[in-house]
């Protein structure tokens, strides 16, 4: 069996926990319970004709890129960088976090996710137009499930190619 650790990183409330819940348990909850510390989940999926078990570390969102605990990110094969399409500052925070990881851990493969696509009419167009191509990000909605499967397939693929 092949395993990989992946992390979800982003500002508070962007929908990291919701994305994991949607992917692992196929449910969505309107309530917001902020994550403290980290929560670990797992799911096995098939990528490139191999079974890969993703150990998914859902980290607490931080407002300040300085305070994301890199300790939890170490050992990850890849990570998902999440922003909330409606809030431009969550893109900037995500980008700062990405740069900090690059700087302190080294360039790790990542997949960007612009979340809450069910609210696309109130998305912040300039931010989305800038970061969507820059990160090569996917549009996702934990609420409707749109793009979620694809997001995790993509992260699994990246993780797999990052493994020795």
């Amino acid at each position, binding site marked *: 069996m092949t395993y*990989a650790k992946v992390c979800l990183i982003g500002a508070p409330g962007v929908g990291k926990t919701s994305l994991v819940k949607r992917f692992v348990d196929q449910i969505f909850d309107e309530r917001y319970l902020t*994550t403290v*510390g980290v929560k670990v*989940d797992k799911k096995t999926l098939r990528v490139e004709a191999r079974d890969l078990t993703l150990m998914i570390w859902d980290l607490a969102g931080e407002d300040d890129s300085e305070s994301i605990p890199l300790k939890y990110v170490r*050992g990850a094969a890849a990570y998902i960088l999440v922003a909330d399409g409606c809030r431009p500052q969550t893109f900037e925070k995500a980008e700062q976090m990405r740069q900090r990881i690059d700087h302190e851990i080294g360039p790790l493969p990542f997949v960007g996710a612009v979340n809450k696509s069910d609210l696309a009419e109130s998305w912040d167009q300039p931010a989305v137009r800038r970061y969507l191509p820059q990160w090569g990000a996917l549009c996702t909605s934990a609420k409707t499930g749109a793009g979620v499967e694809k997001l995790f397939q993509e992260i699994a693929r990246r*993780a797999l190619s990052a493994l020795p």
Partner: protein
Amino acid sequence: MSVVSPLRQPMPPDENMSGSTVGPTSEADFETLRNLLLGEEWVDLNVLRKRLRDPELHAHDLSLVLAKAIVRASQRDTKLRSALLPVVEDAIRISVQRDPKVLANLIYPAIGGALLKSVASLLEEKLEALNMVVEQSFTLRGLQWRVEAWRTGKTVGEIAMLRSLLFRVEHVLLIDPRTGLLLARRSAPGAKIQDPDMMSGMLTAIRDFVADSFGEPQNQDLQTVQVGEFRLWIEHGPLAMLVGVVRGPAPVELRKVFRQALQEIHAQFGTALAEYRGGDVSSFVAAESTLERCLMGTAPATATPPKYRLWLALAGLGLAFLFGYWGFREGQHRRSMEIAQQLNQEPGIVVTQMERRDGKLQISGFRDPLASDPSAILRARGLPENSFQLSLREFESGEPSLIARRQRAAHREWLANLSILFEENSTAISPLAVTQLEEVAKRLKTIFKDRPPAQPVIVYGSANGTGATNRSLAEARAVAIVNLLADLGVPRQWFQVSFRLSEPSGDNPTQRRLARRVYFKLEEEP
């Protein structure tokens, strides 16, 4: 008596020197002569000369005897050692400068062993103490263990652990501490585990979290976590961690078994572990036989299977760390939370989750049984009694003050369970008793190192039967013990002598033996 021997006539000198006229006349002749005289040896000599002059050949020859030469030289005197010392020191220095981890990881198995010998001589003692208990209890089972120990070359203590009915190691997991991924595992027959992968990840996260909350990761590594009826024993190595899921009260010696297994795994899989970044774990399958040896104890499973799934319980442990988001910003409430958060500064208390429910601040986390009372602390800081609800699970903290306290508690327990036996009608102290008393003296000195006992330690002597004679016999036994302890350097004023008499206990030899004993009673630690 004299023996007449035939006379020897000296040879005439010119006859003796007859060959001296044949002298070397030229180089060629000389060569011929050498060949004649030395024959094949001359050829050998030439080969040898060539070998000595050719550096390649010479090095090859030296290499054949080098090891032997070093052994000889170091046996003779210390010159070689002195000569090599600066070279070796330099090499180590350079290696450490380049990457300290290389050397640290290399010597971990060795250092681990050395540490085990010195630091954990405490554990050894306990193993011996366990031996002693077995030796004293001359039950059939004790005898079986001894036979098995003799047969397998293990100590009686180890066999006692392996066969113990008190506890059972249900699962052993080998985890990569960086990724939190499960590398290998082994379970006792019939033992169920829901999701070991998840457990590995979460444990790693808890470990990171605890290390985070306490700073200093090395010394504060999480060592045990209580989960329902299970206790997780965690051993940390530089490249892997080993987790034992244990049901029932296991002896501290079990740690030694785990530690040894982890060291062996480091020695065997060092490179594979160091290089692991995730991915295929099949190269660690071979570690399973080492893990298998950690599956000690034979405690029968409880009749009712646990209702919860192990990892779910773990999640409940505070890994989800979910705060109720609503209301959490209100000033008053926030203040209470800050006060509760300060509990984290108490040794042996970890708050992992706070939540406002039913108008109360619900605080959950861990608490070492030896830590101070958290609700008293909260009240003292001004939180009204009914404004909070604590639900703290037991865990064993790595805080130095608590470790010392726990050691003292273990010593007390050991003392409380000790019996020193006497022969019929005798106050003479047996050789076994002397060894026991040396141990008693050592432990008493540790317990009362910082302050002498507030209440004296009561030394009870007992005798088999009532009446004045038995009473003075019982007392004399207690006095003899105190005298010997005083000789071993334990202050006499720490003790108070007393006696217990019992009705004569018939023909049962074990009971009769046990009635002739001295034992100790200590006040609880305040």
